[in-house]
């Protein structure tokens, strides 16, 4: 790789101060540091002389590796759903290629727009391009439906990167999870393209089979409960489960929801893949196991709590169903664990995760307008995380003060 290094050293002066392309320095810098870890050495004093081999780039790449199972499965599932919806027989490869064709443009748009803005801000603010968007750029495509218009992806990404991150000062300073900001923007600005039925499956302009509605499991569950209530009929603990099992000849069994062969956003359907990702994040220490465990725990306990009240069919649905439906697993594993927008203290992480689980189920079961709660729960807890930290840190200060009087 010496020739590449030589080439870079040759053109480097052009991008230095007073060079021809000085304004493009952040762009050059980003590409150079992408290719080569720079030759910076530690300072002479008041500083450690050796540094750990881990850096933020590698940390972010670890998250992307953890996303790969969801991404690959999601691509296959986009094709699989098309096959189910249209009744056309497709091989595994055909399904995957169909998914790739739908997904790749979304990924490219997300990265191009996001990185474009990052580079622009880096140029304006004269700092180096931060690696945070490496993960965000992959998360955004995975939390949108495959039918999303590309211009909306572009607008949402721009909105999230500028208003969710750059106005606060870039990676490390943001209050909200950037990818969820993008999704929330879509959710409220373009509801017909990201909420409701008929958007979760890319049919490739083929006619759908009879009776196909393209609903998600969450919608089926909520609708079933509503119908039973309006009809004034009684319900049992199995009412919703039966409705899910009966839908489209067994599309929403517990097993298929766990495996993820159901309609939904591109990367979020498979609980199994999310758990594989969670294992990677926990094993590497990049994602906080405390947040993941407490969030699943919070969701499950809230489910049990509603089982105990059970004043309608949805409340009576077995609690473990909540864990495999919708984007709960994906949100908890990849978005709640974002260290910047989560609670920063270890005690705070338990509380933060637990409340995400609780609020998600609250929104799902009690709120008639939103079938899914994980997005709003995480965003809400992002806002609350500094408050949690505040009290944890105050407790630390109090311990220190109480020690002094002894």
């Amino acid at each position: 790789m010496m020739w590449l290094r030589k080439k870079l050293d040759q053109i480097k002066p052009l991008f230095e101060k007073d060079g021809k392309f000085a304004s493009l320095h952040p762009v050059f810098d980003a590409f150079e540091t992408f290719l080569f870890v720079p030759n910076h050495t530690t300072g002479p004093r008041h500083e450690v002389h050796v540094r750990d081999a881990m850096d933020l780039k590698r940390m972010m790449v670890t998250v992307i590796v953890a996303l790969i199972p969801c991404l690959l499965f999601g691509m296959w599932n986009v094709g699989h759903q098309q096959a189910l919806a249209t009744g056309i027989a497709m091989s595994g490869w055909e399904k995957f290629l169909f998914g790739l064709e739908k997904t790749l443009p979304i990924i490219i748009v997300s990265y191009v727009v996001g990185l474009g803005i990052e580079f622009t801000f880096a140029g304006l603010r004269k700092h180096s391009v931060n690696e945070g968007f490496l993960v965000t750029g992959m998360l955004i495509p995975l939390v949108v439906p495959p039918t999303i218009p590309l211009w909306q992806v572009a607008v949402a990404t721009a909105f999230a990167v500028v208003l969710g991150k750059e106005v606060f000062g870039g990676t490390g300073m943001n209050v909200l999870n950037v990818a969820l900001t993008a999704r929330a923007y879509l959710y409220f600005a373009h509801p017909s393209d990201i909420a409701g039925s008929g958007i979760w499956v890319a049919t490739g302009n083929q006619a759908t089979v009879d009776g196909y509605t393209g609903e998600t499991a969450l919608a089926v569950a909520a609708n079933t409960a509503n119908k039973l209530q309006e009809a004034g009929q009684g319900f049992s603990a199995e009412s919703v489960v039966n409705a899910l099992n009966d839908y489209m000849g067994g599309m929403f069994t517990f097993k298929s929801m766990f495996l993820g062969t159901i309609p939904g956003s591109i990367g979020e359907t498979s609980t199994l893949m999310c758990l594989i990702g969670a294992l990677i994040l926990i094993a590497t220490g990049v994602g906080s196991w405390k947040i993941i465990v407490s969030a699943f725990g919070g969701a499950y306990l809230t489910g049990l709590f509603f089982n105990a009240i059970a004043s309608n069919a949805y409340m009576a649905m077995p609690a473990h169903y909540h864990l495999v439906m919708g984007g709960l697993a994906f949100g908890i594993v990849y978005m709640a664990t974002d260290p910047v927008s989560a609670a920063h203290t270890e005690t705070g992480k338990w509380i933060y995760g637990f409340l995400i689980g609780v609020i998600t189920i609250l929104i799902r079961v009690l709120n008639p307008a939103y079938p899914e709660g994980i997005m709003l729960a995480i965003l809400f807890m992002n806002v609350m995380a500094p408050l949690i930290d505040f009290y944890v840190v105050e407790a630390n200060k109090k311990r220190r003060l109480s020690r002094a009087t002894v």
Partner: protein
Amino acid sequence: MSKTIKLKQGFDIRLKGKAGDKLVQDISADVYALKPTDFHHITRPKVLVKEGERVKAGTPIFFDKKNPTVMLAAPVSGEVIEVKRGERRFPLEIKILADKTLEYEQYPTYKLDEIGKLNRREVIDLMAKSGVWANIIERPFGLIAHPEHTPKAIFISGFDTAPLAPDYDMLLQGEEAALQAGIEALRKLTDGKVYLSLPAKNPSKVLSGLQGVEINYFEGKHPAGNVGVHIHHLAPIAKGEYVWTVHPHGVAQIGKLFLKGIYDATTIFALTGSEVAAPQYYKTYRGAQLRPFLQGNLTRDEHEVRIISGNVLTGEKVSLDGFLGFYHHQVTVIPEGNYYDFMGWILPTSKTSRSLSFHRGLGMLSALFPKKEYVLDTNYHGEERPFVQTGIYEQVLPMDIYVEFLLKACLANDLDNMEALGIYEVIEEDIALCEFIDPSKQKMQKTLRDGIETLLNS
């Protein structure tokens, strides 16, 4: 009543080049230097000697007008050959060309049991004017102790867990009597106790037999040997309190002042690191020029290595003609790391001998080899970024302190929060490991010291 405290947090940086058991006594340096930059917060330095003047070992050559009774003394007798000054004429190095046989400033001598009969003022006066006082570091902030303060306790750490740290039985061999005398003197300085902390496994034989101290045992990885950690667990510092700390070598030097009546700057240091051909111990005086010890003992050209007075976490880069730091008992030589690493942020760490990591990220395999010794260089392995990852710093600091919040208070010059979050309990060496493991590559020790300076100047 002695306790054994087990510490879960910490990380050992396993470097290649630990010093062997050999002590070399026949190499000596010609030039010695006292460096005012070795001490924190010297704001109004006053140099007492001129170039060409003759001094004895123990002659005061420098003091800080803010703390005017505390003298810093010449380590050897000889001729002052240079007073090197830096910005705003701040003295950087006061160099002395040593005599072949040393002459000493003579002070009164005492027997061991007579030290206990002296009063506190007499002990302080003798220690302050003779030069040994600078061995006493004051917490909070890690400054030279102020004689007018009364510490609530004095702490001596009897072991060092830093990378390639010297063995204290090597450093302190034959110093039993001096150490005991030093402890008698220190006991006059505090109303509280004198604490000695030892490792739970293989404590130093020389130190284990000392009387008049409370011995506690600590078990764990670095920074288990840091005196700040011991204070935090045994006698934490609150606002308005002082704790003094002394290195065992300093205790022995204080003892020798009382027993022999001289400022004896004899010291032993360990020459360590992967780029040293024969890592071993050397006997010399404080402030010795390093060239005689290193010349011919390096495996590479001097420009390809970094010579550090001290350890790799808190030491100072010096040149081959540089000097041993006042508080240092170790010199570490590691490779410089000014190379480009192609795709070094994503490829599995091919240069595994360079890639020690506390973390277990993608391709970070060092956690799988818990015994392997590494050849770390000075490369940053990345670029400086804002705080991103959380909860990692607390895993290497065995104290009830939120490092990220404390440092953010320092960055924001938020004095109230600095105090409330524990700035009185830490100095650079305590958070050096946090800086080492930081994937955001921030300069944490510098941030902390800047915060302390802000607090001191307010």
